[in-house]
């Protein structure tokens, strides 16, 4: 197989693009996709400080690597979930990466913020583990960015993550989630920073290949709580569809973003208030994070 750009031996085939690339041309393709995402959704400028949420996995470290290379003003944020050895190792990956690149990294412990680490949160609430964890992460990313005066948080969500989330939302016709699914969520309240996903155009195989070719040392083990997660089942289903119909995931996600999302957005306007307890933004009186923390305090 030959590289589409230069004709040298290819290292990676991208069936959905009907193309194969050598390593240098693949890396350039990857960077171009990130540039296009940032440009199309005006995610951030080189003058703005960007908080990059990093987990130690391939996606978030690949994202951080590209943004550093592109001269953006980045600070990493690692949220320590307290998930046994998995958290110890993933934190070490982030610290090593930050030190090697000479970039700042903020570490925040979920146990300090919520009152207990993710395994305890999972056992004292009736939520699936990824639910309490995701809620805490979104809350803390926003709070840390606000406290540090950063207007935008970038996460490593890729095309597969986004397609799987969309698939789940469509299966249940979640009218509140559908308008919120976007590569860039604007700030709709003074206490909400922008959230952007510069890797939404790239599949997880492409982010894995980028991380490998850039020799990024990322955590290969999966979160022990991810096994059996619904989002993984949805990814597997979409993966089988992609295998027989290359481009299916891309068309599903991009078709939604371009054609369907505006209609859901019009239907889904909500009023935002400040939480009576912590002052962060909520559609209710007390935010979901404070309710979660209360539940943890009562039962942990």
């Amino acid at each position, binding site marked *: 197989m030959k590289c589409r750009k230069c004709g040298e031996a290819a290292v990676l085939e991208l069936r959905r693009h009907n193309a194969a690339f050598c390593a240098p041309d693949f890396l350039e393709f990857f960077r171009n996709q990130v540039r296009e995402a940032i440009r199309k959704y005006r995610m951030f400028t080189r003058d703005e400080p960007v908080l990059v949420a990093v987990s130690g996995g391939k996606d978030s470290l690949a994202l951080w690597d590209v943004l550093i290379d592109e001269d953006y003003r980045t600070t990493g944020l690692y949220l320590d979930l307290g998930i046994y050895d998995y958290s110890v190792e993933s934190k070490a990956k982030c610290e090593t990466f930050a030190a090697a690149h000479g970039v700042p990294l903020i570490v925040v412990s979920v146990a300090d913020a919520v009152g207990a680490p993710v395994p305890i949160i999972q056992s004292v609430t009736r939520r699936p583990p*990824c639910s309490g964890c995701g809620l805490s992460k979104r809350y803390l990313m926003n709070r840390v960015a606000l406290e540090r005066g950063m207007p935008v948080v970038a996460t490593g969500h890729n095309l597969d993550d986004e397609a799987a989330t969309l698939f789940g939302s469509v299966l249940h016709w979640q009218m509140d989630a559908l308008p919120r699914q976007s590569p860039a969520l604007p700030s709709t309240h003074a206490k909400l920073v922008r959230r952007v996903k510069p890797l939404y155009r790239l599949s997880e195989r492409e982010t*894995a290949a980028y991380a490998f070719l850039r020799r990024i040392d990322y955590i290969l*083990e999966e979160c022990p709580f991810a096994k059996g997660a619904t989002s993984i089942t949805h990814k597997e289903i979409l993966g089988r569809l992609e295998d027989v119909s290359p481009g299916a995931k891309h068309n599903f996600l991009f078709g939604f973003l371009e054609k369907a999302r505006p209609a859901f957005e019009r239907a889904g306007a909500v009023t935002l208030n400040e939480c009576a307890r912590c002052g962060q933004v909520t559609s209710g009186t007390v935010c979901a994070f404070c309710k979660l923390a209360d539940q943890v305090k009562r039962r942990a």
Partner: protein
Amino acid sequence: MKVILRNPRREIEVAGGRRVKDVLRALDIVPETVLVIRGDDLITADQVVRDDDVIELRPVMSGGGA
């Protein structure tokens, strides 16, 4: 040839002298779900692997999330 699999890490022996895509099919692995690594390089599914090769099939799926 030796094939390294992940999560959990394990090694298996399979016959070489065929293309990567044939090895993947024999192991019932969807090509889009893995990177195929030989030494310090990625290789494409049309490449032929030999009996004395060692390849790693590294899953690309990251999971969880809400």
